[in-house]
């Protein structure tokens, strides 16, 4: 462990922590110590963490603010749920879920790639608003999709259910604003945790690879990177596509955990994109483990505050503002430095205590 470099050590610690938490949760669930509310949150928390890891790759390493990652999550969710629903009964459960996972991820990656080609020509806030617009378009288009299946094959319409002309006995696959109902619920907590760990390993390896270093160079100084001959567009495309693909995996997990999948502002609109961005910024930009921690804490916080009923979201917003000021305000940071309240100083004290013992 000592021979490994710092970031690898950190990755291993994170994975071990996730693993321990996973076992604790499993034991609690088996012994019935977990409220149904909490056990219902296990898979969504992993899904949000995945999307946050994906977005962190985009924000932290590519250095571009995306407000449309809920859109990629949405693509992953709907393509995979559509696949699972269509082939329910024709392909056995396990291979079908694996295929759905692959298809959802690839679809999100494809959308990420297609969107990135024009979008990455822009920069800064303009890029942010265009990704936000793409997310909204995806959500809107899914809400007018009607797809049904009967003996004659698959029917498609963007008007309403009637214009599909389904034979009696045909099934609706996507029913406009009602979305997809009856997706097999196959995302278990185990699968979710495995995918989360896998994504952490992939992102860790990516940012430390040759491509990853190039991406970081472009983030730090695009003009300098261009001068030394890095193909800017190519590296940006690669990073953005991977980021979208990971968000898509989150979407697949999310879709296979609920019975009726709909695209609303709160689950796939800008509200979700913004929520994920909050995880990324609070967890630390460029820090994948931090994204996971923030996603877990911030998803559980409103649930733990449920006893306060109506005040919980109010408290949540106040905590959010206070945390941002505490972590980022230059005045407060100076105060913390003077009084030994920074993260490094606190960890330093712990280490000293250990050495004394």
């Amino acid at each position: 462990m000592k021979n490994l470099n710092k970031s690898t050590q950190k990755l291993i610690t994170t994975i071990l922590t996730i693993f321990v938490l996973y076992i604790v949760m499993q034991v609690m669930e088996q012994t019935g110590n977990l409220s149904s509310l909490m056990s219902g949150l296990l898979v969504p928390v992993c899904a949000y963490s995945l999307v946050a890891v994906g977005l962190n790759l985009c924000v932290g390493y590519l250095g571009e603010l995306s407000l449309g990652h809920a859109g990629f999550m949405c693509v992953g969710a709907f393509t995979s749920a559509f696949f699972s629903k269509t082939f329910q009964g024709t392909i056995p459960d396990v291979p079908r879920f694996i295929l759905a996972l692959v298809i959802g991820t690839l679809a999100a990656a494809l959308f990420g790639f297609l969107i990135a080609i024009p979008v990455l020509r822009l920069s800064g806030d303009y890029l942010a608003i265009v990704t936000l617009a793409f997310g909204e378009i995806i959500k809107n288009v899914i809400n007018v999709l009607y797809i049904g299946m009967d003996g004659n094959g698959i029917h498609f319409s963007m008007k309403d259910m009637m214009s599909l002309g389904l034979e009696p006995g045909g099934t609706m696959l996507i029913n406009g604003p009602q979305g997809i109902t009856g997706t097999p619920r196959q995302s278990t907590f185990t699968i979710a945790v495995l995918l989360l760990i896998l994504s952490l390993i992939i992102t860790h390896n990516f940012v430390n690879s040759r491509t990853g270093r190039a991406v970081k160079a472009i983030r730090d100084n695009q003009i300098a990177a261009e001068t030394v001959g890095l193909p800017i567009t190519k590296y940006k495309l690669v990073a953005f596509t991977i980021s979208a693909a990971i968000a898509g995996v989150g979407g697949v997990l999310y879709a296979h955990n609920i019975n009726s999948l709909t695209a609303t502002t709160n689950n796939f609109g800008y509200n979700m994109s913004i929520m994920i961005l909050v995880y990324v910024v609070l967890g630390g930009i460029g820090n994948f483990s931090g994204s996971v921690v923030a996603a877990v804490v911030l998803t559980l916080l409103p649930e733990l505050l449920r006893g306060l009923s109506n005040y919980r979201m109010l408290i949540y917003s106040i905590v959010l503002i206070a945390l941002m000021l505490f972590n980022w305000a230059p005045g407060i940071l100076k105060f913390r430095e003077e009084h030994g309240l920074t993260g490094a100083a606190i960890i330093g004290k712990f280490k000293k205590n250990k050495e004394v013992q």
Partner: protein
Amino acid sequence: MGFLTYLINGLSLGSVYAIIALGYTMVYGIAKMLNFAHGDVIMVGAYLVFMCMSNTGSPAIVSIVISIVCCTALGMIIEKIAYKPLRRATNLAVLITAIGVSYFLQNMALLIFGSNPVSFTSVIKWQGIALAGGQLKITGNAIITIITCLIIMFALMWFVKNTKPGQAMRAVSEDKDAAVLMGINVNATISLTFAIGSGLAAIAGALLCSSYPSLTPYTGSMPGIKAFTAAVFGGIGSIPGALIGGLLLGIIEILAKAYISSQLADAIVFAVLIIVLLVKPTGILGKQIKEKV
């Protein structure tokens, strides 16, 4: 005649977007931050007008003035508490704080007013005029909204160009550090910008809810996003850009609803935005800032 009616409705909706977009664009131009809480100030403004009119029975104009005063104060308080400490922090930190403020305002409104929509009584009593033998009806709402928007726009352009505080605003937006050296009080200027933006949001709230009378704690968020889009569309930081962006967005939205599909209208609006930005990456009237090595 149908087309003309839609066009006028679009202009009226676009005028509201333009007034909201002004708040975004001015704050962005001067403080270089995306104030995501702006949409929720609109909602607060609309609720204040509603409360004044229904609880105390005060006339519309008095209610609007009260609402403007309260929203101006609210904008300045928000700036003081949440944004000012982060003046030299990264843009993202300010953005997330703005989102926190937006959640705060929404949930505060949810606690006070509940989630049930209230039906807003229009602040404009005038029925409007009928042209072409009654074939073309223009509502009072539409006329007053468009006129208000134009008055605000020209007043603001005059203010920014010809008054001392206006000049200070332009100086701060150009170069904050140089402005300090010229003896401009940057903090006061930013505060003033927030005050103007939030006051305008109160007017926008009253006008928006006069045309679309269902008011909930979430009323502000979608128009907020659209107006932000409008500001980017016209070139963020530019006042005439906000007018053009807002009006175009409103017209496109109404025409798309009327002729293509009411459910796809938002998607079409955003698609047009993307196309415009791809052709002209800084918006219609935005300035291209060259990056120096």
